[in-house]
């Protein structure tokens, strides 16, 4: 069984059909790229999977459970994690607290009130920060970071809860080339315990890290397969040519 299976997903906003029977299947420990031209429905599909939008039609299964009607909180507790397209770190909190907040999400109320997990989580916080090269800024407000660093912080936060599936919406947006390279390096190690769905415009980046790709066009799946398969697909080349 695949880890995530979304089938027949439609989403209609008023008169606009954003998704029209789209589907996505992701296996365990698989890095899956979601690509397509602007307005093809990539972000909407991500949101429907993460629970930020409720699909008009269709079904989402995750670890053999139908989660279509789950709230974002319930999805997160089932092991799904999302990094938004627009960075949404908590700007006036320190980096340390941002990570701590993500780590303690499933602590019980009493643990929270009496801060029972605070000491135990300290090492984990510092490990995460070190891993994402942010340790020296641990006690700065998140707002003080550069845009790229904020993206890393958010990826770190998304990974903090040890998710089974991580959804990344344009992680390299606004990054320099060097920052993109580092982002790729930072993502590689997580493959051992986590699957990844990634929406990205930077095709080189996608090609470098993904195992499989799904191409959306006008709310429908145009093609799905391994990276070489997709690269060889003529209709995919066509839409990207059309865009150029």
């Amino acid at each position, binding site marked *: 069984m695949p880890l995530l299976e979304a089938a027949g997903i439609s989403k209609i906003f008023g008169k606009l059909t954003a998704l029209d029977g789209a589907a996505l299947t992701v296996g365990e420990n698989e890095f899956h790229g979601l690509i397509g031209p602007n307005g093809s429905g990539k972000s909407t599909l991500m949101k429907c999977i*993460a629970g*930020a939008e409720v699909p008009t039609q269709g079904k989402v299964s995750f670890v053999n459970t139908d989660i279509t009607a789950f*709230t*974002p*909180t319930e999805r*997160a*507790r089932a092991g799904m*994690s*999302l990094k*938004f397209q*627009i*960075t*949404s*770190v*908590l*700007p*006036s*909190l*320190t980096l*340390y*607290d941002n990570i*701590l*907040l*993500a780590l*303690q*999400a*499933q*602590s019980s*109320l009493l*643990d*929270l*009130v*009496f*801060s029972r*997990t*605070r*000491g135990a*989580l*300290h090492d984990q*916080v510092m490990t995460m920060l070190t891993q994402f090269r942010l340790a*020296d800024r*641990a*006690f*700065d*407000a998140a*707002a*003080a970071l550069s*845009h790229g660093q904020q993206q890393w912080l958010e990826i770190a*936060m998304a990974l903090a*809860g040890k998710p089974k599936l991580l959804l990344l919406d344009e992680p390299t947006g606004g990054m320099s080339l060097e920052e993109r390279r580092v982002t790729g390096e930072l993502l590689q190690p997580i493959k051992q315990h986590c699957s990844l769905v990634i929406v990205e415009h930077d095709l080189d980046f996608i090609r470098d890290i993904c195992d499989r790709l799904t191409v959306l066009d006008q709310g429908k799946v145009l093609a799905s397969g391994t990276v070489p398969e997709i690269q060889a697909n003529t209709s995919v080349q066509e839409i990207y040519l059309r865009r150029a």
Partner: protein
Amino acid sequence: MSKSMSAVKQAIPAELGGETDVAMTERVAIAQAVAGRKVLPVVEGVVLVAALLAPLVLQDYLTVFATRVVILALFALSFDLVWGYAGIMSFGQALFFGSAGYGVALLARDLDITNIFLVLPAGTLIGLTFALLLGGFLLLGRHPSSVIFVSLGTLTGSYAADRLARGWYYLGGQNGIPSISSMTLGGYEFSEGPAFYYLVLGILIVVYLLCRFLVRSQFGLALAGLRENEQRIAFFGYKAQHLKAIIFAIGGAIAGLAGSLYAFHEGFVWPNMVGVVVSTQVVLYVLFGGSGTLIGAVIGTVIVEGVSFWLSDNYRDIWPIILGVLLLLVILFRPLGLISFVLGERERVGSFSAKRKEKRNAAP
């Protein structure tokens, strides 16, 4: 204009979204300027000493006035917890304050119960129960309620309660319940004066310390996150609405405690006490002092009540207008309250790290 605009945004971090603009750079500047300097404990200490000494230097009737202010400060604390820390706009905080006041007034009137160990817990419980009911209704559910819905919902709740109290003859209708007997401890009666003052001051200090513990705990961190970006917190897997309902209920309990003290101190309860007027008043206290800092709520209460007391003495005809103008000025130019003159943003938000010492070492 951009300056005050960004300042307004700072007051409402939950609505900031993820923008990067002037506000952020400003905030950073403040953060860096203040890092390593601890102002808050100093402010708290000064207020505590002033409060302890007050009855010694004040005339009798001013001690009675100060008692009232301390009770209202307790009430302000309840609102600050809900709005300043969790970002829930409760325009109906008086509902819990007043219903507890009515509750203990009825206990005293109909059942002759005035023992402090019965009436104060009873009032607290009434506030808690009403807050659980209203908060549960407004905040819980499959979809998170909008900020506007919660604020107008609480406002309407308080308004409807006010009208119910006015219409309900058992509660004394428009006249309220007068001449409530004094609160007792065995044979001792708490009548207005220094003893009552130190009683409520003691309660305020205990509640303040509890709140301080709460907002600095990991629970407080979750609230801070909630205030900044509720959606983000929900996506981490927090039961955000439950957290909000819990802090709302705690706020209601504290408001109830304050309301029962108020009823016994003033000796009467009347419909305004559950209504929009008192609900708005508590918003003013916290706004003036500075939301999101516990001491700001206390300072705001003292300032607003003190200024009103003075203005109503000397500029009686126009004091509501002056109050309105002052309020508008604070909202426009000091949205973080008067405390922001001495307290930086960084310290206001605070840090929840396990080893606080590292903070100073790591700060640039």
